[in-house]
């Protein structure tokens, strides 16, 4: 699965539109993930996961910042995300199935906030982008 030039354009223009809201959207996507897929909470026993939690918001911003980095390095995701890949493989060891769940909730969040821009083609490009990021983050698992 390769990001085409059109995909890259769609991804970058989406991120431009998101602007300063990326952090908020990251937090919202996490919130949606925890509520729709309660098994994902098992990775955060040390967090307050109630809606509006400051810890979830802060963590959402971390996730969003990493995605922003990824957007700036679409031609070289493995290199740009190498440290995060190590972290997920050797320390966090989040089961690969969960990346799909968070990716889905990121898409739902973007669809809610930017319904007009979230055309089928943009949706497809973003789905590919999150899949590509997920692949890199799980690439050193074994």
């Amino acid at each position: 699965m390769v990001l085409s030039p059109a995909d890259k354009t769609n991804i970058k223009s989406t991120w431009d539109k998101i602007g300063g809201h990326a952090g908020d959207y990251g937090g919202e996507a996490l919130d949606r993930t925890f509520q729709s897929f309660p098994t994902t909470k098992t990775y955060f026993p040390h967090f307050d996961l109630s809606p509006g939690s400051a810890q979830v918001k802060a963590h959402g911003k971390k996730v969003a910042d990493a995605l922003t980095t990824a957007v700036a390095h679409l031609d070289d995701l493995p290199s740009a995300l190498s440290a995060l890949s190590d972290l997920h493989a050797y320390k966090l060891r989040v089961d690969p199935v969960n990346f799909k769940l968070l990716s889905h909730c990121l898409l739902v969040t973007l669809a809610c906030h930017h319904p007009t821009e979230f055309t089928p083609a943009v949706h497809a490009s973003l789905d590919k982008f999150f899949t590509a990021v997920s692949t890199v983050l799980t690439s050193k698992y074994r």
Partner: protein
Amino acid sequence: MVHFTAEEKAAVISLWARVNVELVGGEVLGRLLVVYPWTQRFFDNFGNLSSESAIMGNPKVKAHGKKVLTSFGNAIKHMDDLKDTFAELSELHCDKLHVDPENFKLLGNMILIVLATHFSKEFTPQTQAAWQKLTTAVANALAHKYH
């Protein structure tokens, strides 16, 4: 058997009442075919599926999308009895249509995303969770008779 709380049922039913089944059905199926192009394998006789606009404007896609979503509406009337409600459709999808049940999950997620585009901030995390539970339960019911 999946148990839906009163709140979950209310969240699903109240949103469903405002869904234009014809419009949303077409969008849901269209997005499935655009975002996961391999799903087009089931629709060789649908004509032109060569681009996003061709797919989203294709009358057979819209008609079939409406059919699928109408069936989903039946699920909402039988949320306590999904396995029996979908038993025949499950056999059909296995024996005649040969659809990998993974596709039911993909379609379920498309339903959620289209609802998100239509209902925006009203599609709260709680509302999404109720609908997520329903689409998962319908997907499982449709897979139940596979052999």
